[in-house]
C-alpha cells in the first residue's frame, strides 16, 4: 500500500474518518449559468484563513501601545525578513476579504439562497459580515498612523450619535472620552481575541449549516428540475468542485502576492493626537457608502438631527437585512419582486455611494 493509504487507514482506525466524511462524498453542487458565484463563500473563507495565519505571524513582532505600535510596524516593514510581505498580504487580504464577503452576500441575496430552510445560514452570514467590518475597523487603527487615528476618531464619533446608548457605546469603544492609547489597546483586544473567537464560532456554524443543508438552487431552476428531474445537472463537491475551488484559491494567492509585492501597503506617519486633523479624512472604502450618506443628509431633517437620523436609518436597514428571510418568506410573489428590486437598489446604492465618497473631497 502506498504510504498515503497506510496513513489514512491508521487515522481512520482511530478517528473514524471514513464515516465522518461519507456525507461529504455524496455532496453535490448544482450546475447552472450562475454556478460560478458559488466560489465566493470558499474564497472568503480562504482569505480569512490567510488573515489568521498572517495575523499570527504579525503578532510575533507587533507591539500594541501608543508609543510602540507604529515603530513596531515600521520594524516589521523594514527589519524583519519578509515582514513587508506578511504585513502587506495581511492588509490586502483584509480588503479583498471584505470585498468577497460583500459579493458573497449579494450573490446569495440575488440567488435567493436565504430561503427556508437556510434562514440561519443567512443570519449567521450577515452577522459574520458585520464582524468582518469590525475586523477592518479595529485592525485599521493598529499601526497607529495619522490616517487611522483620525478615521477612528470620526468613526467612533458617529457611533455616539445613536440616541441614549450612543455615548456609552462610544466610551466603551474608545476606552475613554477620546481616542488614546487606551483605544489602541482595546481595539487590539477586539481584533485578535474577541472578534476571532466570535467569527470562528459563527464560521463553524455557517459552514456546518451549508454542509448539512447542501447548496441552494435558484428558485426558478428548482421548480424546473423538480418537474423534470432528468434535466438536473450537478457536480460532485468532492473532488470536482473542491479542485476547482482550489484553483480559485491559488489564483487568489497569486493575486495577493502580486499586490503585496507591487503595491506594498503604506506605513504613513505616526499619529500625533495634538496635531490638527488633515483635511479630507475619509474612512476605508468599505465604510464610504455610509460615510458619504451621512455627509449628504442635511443637518436637520424634520425634527431630528440629520446625523442621528442617518445612523438610526442604517441601524434599521441592518436589522432588516439580518431578518430578511423571515420577512420575505410568506409574502406574495409581487412583494418578493419588490424586495428583489430593493436589493438591486441597495447594491447600486452601496456601489454608487462608495464611488462618490471616493471621488468627493
Amino acid at each position: 500500500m502506498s504510504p498515503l493509504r497506510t496513513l489514512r487507514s491508521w487515522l481512520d482506525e482511530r478517528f473514524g474518518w471514513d464515516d465522518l466524511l461519507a456525507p461529504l462524498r455524496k455532496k453535490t453542487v448544482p450546475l447552472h449559468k450562475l454556478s460560478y458565484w458559488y466560489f465566493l463563500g470558499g474564497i472568503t473563507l480562504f482569505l480569512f484563513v490567510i488573515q489568521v495565519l498572517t495575523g499570527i505571524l504579525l503578532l510575533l513582532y507587533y507591539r500594541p501601545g501608543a508609543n510602540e505600535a507604529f515603530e513596531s510596524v515600521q520594524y516589521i516593514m523594514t527589519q524583519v525578513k519578509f515582514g513587508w510581505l506578511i504585513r502587506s498580504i495581511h492588509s490586502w487580504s483584509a480588503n479583498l476579504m471584505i470585498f468577497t464577503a460583500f459579493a458573497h452576500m449579494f450573490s446569495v441575496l440575488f440567488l435567493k439562497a436565504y430561503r427556508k430552510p437556510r434562514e440561519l445560514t443567512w443570519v449567521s452570514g450577515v452577522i459574520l459580515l458585520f464582524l468582518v467590518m469590525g475586523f477592518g475597523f479595529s485592525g485599521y487603527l493598529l499601526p497607529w498612523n495619522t490616517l487611522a487615528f483620525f478615521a477612528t476618531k470620526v468613526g467612533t464619533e458617529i457611533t455616539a450619535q445613536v440616541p441614549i446608548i450612543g455615548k456609552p457605546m462610544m466610551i466603551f469603544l474608545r476606552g475613554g472620552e477620546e481616542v488614546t492609547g487606551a483605544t489602541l489597546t482595546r481595539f487590539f483586544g477586539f481584533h485578535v481575541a474577541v472578534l476571532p473567537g466570535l467569527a470562528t464560532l459563527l464560521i463553524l456554524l455557517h459552514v456546518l449549516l451549508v454542509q448539512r443543508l447542501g447548496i441552494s438552487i435558484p428558485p426558478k431552476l428548482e421548480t424546473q428540475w423538480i418537474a423534470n428531474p432528468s434535466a438536473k445537472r450537478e457536480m460532485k463537491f468532492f473532488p470536482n468542485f473542491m479542485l476547482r475551488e482550489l484553483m480559485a484559491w491559488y489564483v487568489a494567492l497569486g493575486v495577493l502576492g502580486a499586490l503585496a509585492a507591487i503595491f506594498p501597503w503604506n506605513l504613513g506617519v505616526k499619529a500625533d493626537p495634538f496635531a490638527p486633523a488633515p483635511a479630507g479624512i475619509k474612512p476605508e472604502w468599505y465604510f464610504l457608502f455610509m460615510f458619504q450618506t451621512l455627509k449628504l443628509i442635511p443637518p436637520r431633517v424634520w425634527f431630528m438631527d440629520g446625523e442621528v437620523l442617518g445612523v438610526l436609518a442604517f441601524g434599521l436597514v441592518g436589522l432588516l437585512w439580518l431578518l430578511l428571510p423571515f420577512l420575505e418568506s410568506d409574502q406574495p410573489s409581487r412583494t418578493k419582486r419588490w424586495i428583489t428590486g430593493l436589493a438591486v437598489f441597495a447594491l447600486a446604492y452601496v456601489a454608487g455611494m462608495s464611488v462618490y465618497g471616493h471621488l468627493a473631497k
Partner: protein
Amino acid sequence: MAILQNKLRPFSATCCLGLAFVVLAACLGYGQTTNSCLDCHSALPDPLGVSQEKFSQDIHAQKGLTCVSCHGGDPTSDDPDKAMSRKDGWNGKIDRKQIPQLCGSCHSDPAYIRQFNPSLRTDQLDQYRTSVHGKRLASGDTKVAVCTDCHSVHDLRAPSDPRSTVNPVNVANTCAHCHSDAGYMKGYSIPTDQFAKYSTSVHHEAMAVRGDLSAPTCSTCHGNHGAVPPGVDKIQNVCSNCHAFQAQMYEKSSHKKAFDAASLPGCVVCHGNHGIVHPTDAYLGTGPEAVCMRCHTPGDKCDQARAALQSGLNRLDDAIKSADRVLGVAESSGMEVSEARLGQDQARDSLTKARVTIHSFRTDLVDQDIQAGMKIAAKNLQAGKEAMVERNRRRIGLGISLIAVGIVLAGLWLYIKKIES
C-alpha cells in the same frame, strides 16, 4: 377684598413701571462721569469728531485719562465758552510742534509712568530728539512724524494689540503712510519705494505670511523713536543681530576690508536693504542675478574663486536632488527608506551651512562643508539604490512564485479534465 385688589392693580403697575424706568436710567447712566466734551464731539463730523466708542479703545481712556488730560478745559460744563476757555486752560488742537513735548510730559516722567506700568520705558522723547524726525521738527519742519502720526490718537492702542498701528505686523504700513507717498515726500531727498521693495522681501513674508513677529520690520533696523537710517559702516551690525554666523564670517573676510575702504554698505551691497529676497546660488553665477560680477573682472583670480564656489554648491545641490529622486522612486515602489530621508535632512543642512560659509569668501572653508554634505548625500543615494535592488529582487521573487502558482493551476486544470473525461 376683590374691590381692593382691583384698585391696587393699576397703582402697583405704575409703581413697577416707574421703578423700572429709574433703574434703567441709572444703569444707562452708571459709570459715566460727566464729560461734556464727548457729548458734543461725538456728534460732530471729522476732523472734530471723536465718538465714545472710538475713545473707549484708547489705552489712555482705559487707564482713566480723559480729554482734559491733554486738551484741558472744563468737562462739567455744557456751555462751549466755559468748556473751551483758553483763559481757563483749554489748549484746543495741539500744535504739531508741541505734541512730543505734551506726550513727553507724562511719558518721560518715570515716577508718573511707574504708577501705571513700571516696566514701560521713559526715554522715548530723548530718543526722538536724536532722530531725523525729531531734528527736523526742531528746525521747523512740521511735515515729519510726531507721536500721534505713528501711534494714532484718541484710539491709541498698546503696541502688543494686533490692531495697534505700532504693532510689529503694522509698523511697515504706518511708516509707509508718509514714506511711500511720493507727493508728500516731495522736497525730501530720499526715495519712496522702500515699502514697495520691502513688500517683496523675505522679511515681510516672514512677518505678514508666516506670522513670525520676530521678523524685521522698519523699526527693527531703523529704530522707532530714534529713527535714523543706519550708517553705511554700521549696517552689518544691524544684520548681525539675527544673522550672526554670516556676520562673523564676513567680519573676517577680505570683503569687509574692501567694502569699508570703499565706504560700501556691507551686506546691502549684495543683498539690498529693503527688497531683500531669498538669495539663490545664481548670485554666484554670471547671469542677471549675479552679484559678484558687478564688481569683479571676468577671468581674474576672484572670478575663478567665484566659479569654484558656485560649482561646489551646484555639485552638492545636484547630489542631494539625485538622491531624493532615487529615494522617491523607491518610496513609491513601496520600499521603506525613512532613515535615508532623515539623512537627506542632514545633507540639506550641510548645503545651508555651505551657503552661510560663502560669506567668508574662502573656497577652502566652503569646500569643507560641501565635502561633508557630499558624503552624506552619497550615502543616501546608496541607500536608495539598495532599496531599488531589493525592490527588483522582490519582483523576481514574485515572478518565481507566480510561475509556481501557474504550474499548480495548469496541473489542477489538467487533473480535473482528466478525472472528468
